[in-house]
């Protein structure tokens, strides 16, 4: 599988503090990687470095030629002082045909809300609109920064299901920062645990047993992950008896 984007030995420090130390990450075609880590671990900075919007101190980023990246920022909170419809927002600085807009709207299930005001959307609707915007550039790689942070459980589940569908139907790569590991476990193939450096990475169940993971997140998180894995391995038919 060929590599889309690769970070080699990234180092970033600001105001005397090391934000990223010797980070290596390689994102290949059809990868689904979730980055986890405590607050202030440098997760968002790593995403910005990969997109080329953050200055590195050392290290390098190697991108595939003509790599198209779709991005969903953290805490997207449109202000009500600007009246703008979802359709107009999707069109800002983007070039696409009406048909593409229609397809993406159907794919992300936002056809009904295209003429709504952006600031009046619910949290779940807003994340779908952002996803639609990122898909409009036909990305090879989606980068999402805590996309379901402000959603309730039901909307989180809907969002991750939608993301999983898009991942499978479009055969793209996804790199995501998320704390909802119990939610994304089913789809994510690889978990990278970041705390300035990469503590551990691998399949979710392997990461959950890693001592560094347990020391960062505590036993509860590790148990939660393994419990999920456990329930995932057998059927639930007998629960309904």
């Amino acid at each position, binding site marked *: 599988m060929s590599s889309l984007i690769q970070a080699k030995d990234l180092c970033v420090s600001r105001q005397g503090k090391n934000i990223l130390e010797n980070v290596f990450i390689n994102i290949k075609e059809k990868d689904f990687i979730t980055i986890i880590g405590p607050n202030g671990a440098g997760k968002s900075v790593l995403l910005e470095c990969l997109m080329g919007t953050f200055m590195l101190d050392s290290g390098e980023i190697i991108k595939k030629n003509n790599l198209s*990246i779709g*991005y969903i920022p953290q805490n997207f909170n449109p202000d009500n*002082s*600007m009246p*703008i*419809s979802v359709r*107009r927002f999707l069109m*800002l*600085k983007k070039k696409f045909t009406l048909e593409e807009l229609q397809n993406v709207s159907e794919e992300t299930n936002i056809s009904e809300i295209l003429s709504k005001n952006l600031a009046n959307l619910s949290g779940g609707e807003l994340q779908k609109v952002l996803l639609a915007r990122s898909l409009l550039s036909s990305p090879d790689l989606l980068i999402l920064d805590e996309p379901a942070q402000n959603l309730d459980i039901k909307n989180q589940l809907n969002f991750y299901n939608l993301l999983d569908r898009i991942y499978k139907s479009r055969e793209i790569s996804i790199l995501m920062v998320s704390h909802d590991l119990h939610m994304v476990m089913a789809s994510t193939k690889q978990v990278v645990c970041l705390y300035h450096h990469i503590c551990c990475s691998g399949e979710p169940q392997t990461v959950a047993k890693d001592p560094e993971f347990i020391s960062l997140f505590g036993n509860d998180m590790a148990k939660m992950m393994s419990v999920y894995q456990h329930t995932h391995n057998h059927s639930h038919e007998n629960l309904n008896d």
Partner: protein
Amino acid sequence: MIESFLIKATVAGIGVAIISGVIGCFVVWRKMAYFGDSLAHSALLGVALGLVLGINTNLGTFIICSIFAILLIWLQQKKILATDTLLGILAHSALSIGMVTLSLLERSVDLHSYLFGDILAVTYFEIYLILFGGLIVLIFIYLNWSSFVLVTINEKLAKAEGLSILANQLLIMLLMTIVVAVSFRIVGLLLITSLLIIPAATARLLANSPEFMAIISSLLGIFAVIIGIYGSLYLDTPSGPSIVVSAVIIFITVSFISSCYKKN
């Protein structure tokens, strides 16, 4: 030769209303009201600079306000003090230095007309300045409209999609500087923020797209300027404050009507 001063005042006022209506939308969207106010305060130092160096006061204002904007962005990047603290320090030091300088000048200066504006005394030169400056502002806004709107909605998203936040921010601030520099003789330094904010805020109640909001804002500004000028003549009141009062009356009327409309 009936009332040529009145025609001049009206033309100047309409020019100012159009550009301040458009740039005022960005002031409202980007929450730059305090920045606009500070810019206007610092303009007094620009007036002083203009008089001391013997250059045009509008040019002096433009130079000082541009330095002010760049200084502010530079200090903001340091992230040590909050923006409103920085603005407070910069604005009031510029205002005070300007006042001290003006008082040291050996000639008398009509401070009142700088602070509250004197649209009826507008000269042909000032009208050309407004039209020329206004044209530049409108062209830049037209060319960068989508970028400005996207940067205003979300900086991270705009940055990820390849826009330079600093360049856009700087350009918006410089355009605002031009607006302040060409229009402070109309409503005065102390009231210029109101001409930026009030029509735009009123337009927000009526518009459903950013473009429409900018257009309505300009139209409401024109309306306020015309009522203000003729009102001030009729009632013999100062022109700058009269324009602001008419803008406020329009704002209250529209708010009232739109809240009634929404209830039904």
